[in-house]
């Protein structure tokens, strides 16, 4: 399977080339186009329970499986927001993905909703983060974002604004905390809560905060 991302960073689209018999698992609604020999099957992967959990995490209940029948084929997928897409190889130690960023993956990748609890709730990222685990090396996921995606290396310590998080190596430990020492300073600084990462690993960020952008535009709209 080969991923080819085009139109970065503002209107990214991923062209996925599959060998005969290969399968791609994609978020419902992510597909833009596909060759005629692709077979699409809709299912709630992992059963109703897993489907519901996905739904609460901001993902869709159903997911689509694309299979290349009788030879190679291609699927085009994209994200709903204007922005970037990158493909990430899922490490042995798993990958954490911010709930609305997941687009597609190899069939060998199992992505499940992880209850973030109060920690992620207060971080303004919704209740769930997703955890992707790979059955072997070379398995990839496609993640999408609002804005450009930048890969950062956490070398010991790194602080990220929660609204800009896309994905991170699960081997990193993280905690959410106030951006400044006091609540008033945190509020006035406009940074609110941040994620403090520790360890060695990669973190992917998006250059825009969808909630902030939505608030800024939304405030100027006439009341409904």
């Amino acid at each position, binding site marked *: 399977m080969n991923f080819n991302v085009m139109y970065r960073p503002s209107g990214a689209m991923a062209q996925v080339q599959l060998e005969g018999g290969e399968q791609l698992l994609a978020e419902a609604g992510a597909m833009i186009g596909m060759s005629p020999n692709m077979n699409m099957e809709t299912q709630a992967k992992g059963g109703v329970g897993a489907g519901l959990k996905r739904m609460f995490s901001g993902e869709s209940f159903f997911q689509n499986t694309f299979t290349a029948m009788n030879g190679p084929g291609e699927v085009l997928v994209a994200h709903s927001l204007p922005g970037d897409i990158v493909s990430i190889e899922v490490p042995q130690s798993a990958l954490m993905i911010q709930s609305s960023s997941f687009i597609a993956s190899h069939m060998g990748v199992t992505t499940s909703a992880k209850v973030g609890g109060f920690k992620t709730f207060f971080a303004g990222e919704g209740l769930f983060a997703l955890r992707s685990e790979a059955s072997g090396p070379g398995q990839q996921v496609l993640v999408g974002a609002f804005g450009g995606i930048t890969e950062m290396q956490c070398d010991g310590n790194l602080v990220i604004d929660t609204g800009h998080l896309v994905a991170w190596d699960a081997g990193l430990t993280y905690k959410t905390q106030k951006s400044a020492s006091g609540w008033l300073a945190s509020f006035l*600084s406009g940074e609110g809560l941040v994620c403090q990462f520790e360890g060695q690993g990669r973190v992917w960020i998006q250059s825009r905060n969808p909630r902030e*952008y939505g608030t*800024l535009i939304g405030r100027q709209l006439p009341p409904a």
Partner: protein
Amino acid sequence: MDHQITHNPSFALLEVNIQPGELLVAEAGSMVAKDSHVGMEVKMNAGAKAGFFDKVKAFFIAFVRKIIGGESFFVNHFSAAQPGRVWVAPTLIGQVAHKKLGGGSFVMSSGAFVASMGDVDMKMKFGGLKSLFSKEGLFMLEVSGTGDVWFNSYGGIEEIEVNGTYILDNGHLVGYEGQLEYSLKKAGGGFISSMTSGEGIVLEFSGQGKIYMQSRNIPSFVGWVANMLP
């Protein structure tokens, strides 16, 4: 200090490497990430040389703006005892541009300020009715001194060298060098043609210096979105 801007012109992200003793001043809420050892302190955006009255005024405005929304008049100060990185990004879809200040002043429309470093003084400039009608907000931000300034736009940023006069549609101004002056004008000859041309009011700049304009304007976009709502 060295810096790098990526993802221009639509989704600019600014990375600044701070050396010990340097101070990066950035718009409140614009931080995307930082090294843990880089310290952050929230300050009121009144300017270092502001007097007591200016500070009281600035605090009052700042607090009201923070509550009712609009651009913030608080800034965050970033500094580090050993070299460290800070990433900042604006809210809007657009570009970030860098400008070296060499003693002159630079006036930015509201919301355009991203960050500054060096011996740069900031003050709010009350634009009055002129500023309000030019759709640039009631306040503008004037920076002066020597150092670096980064500013952002909605859309791409075009630099225009003015020598004499230049006309700019309202809503498209990002910033202009302090030695320039502007006045409001009707776009067309008469009142009717001015309104029907869809251009309405324009800004006429005069003098010698640079103006920076943006390729999109927010009121137009918001108006379009508002029409699409159920």
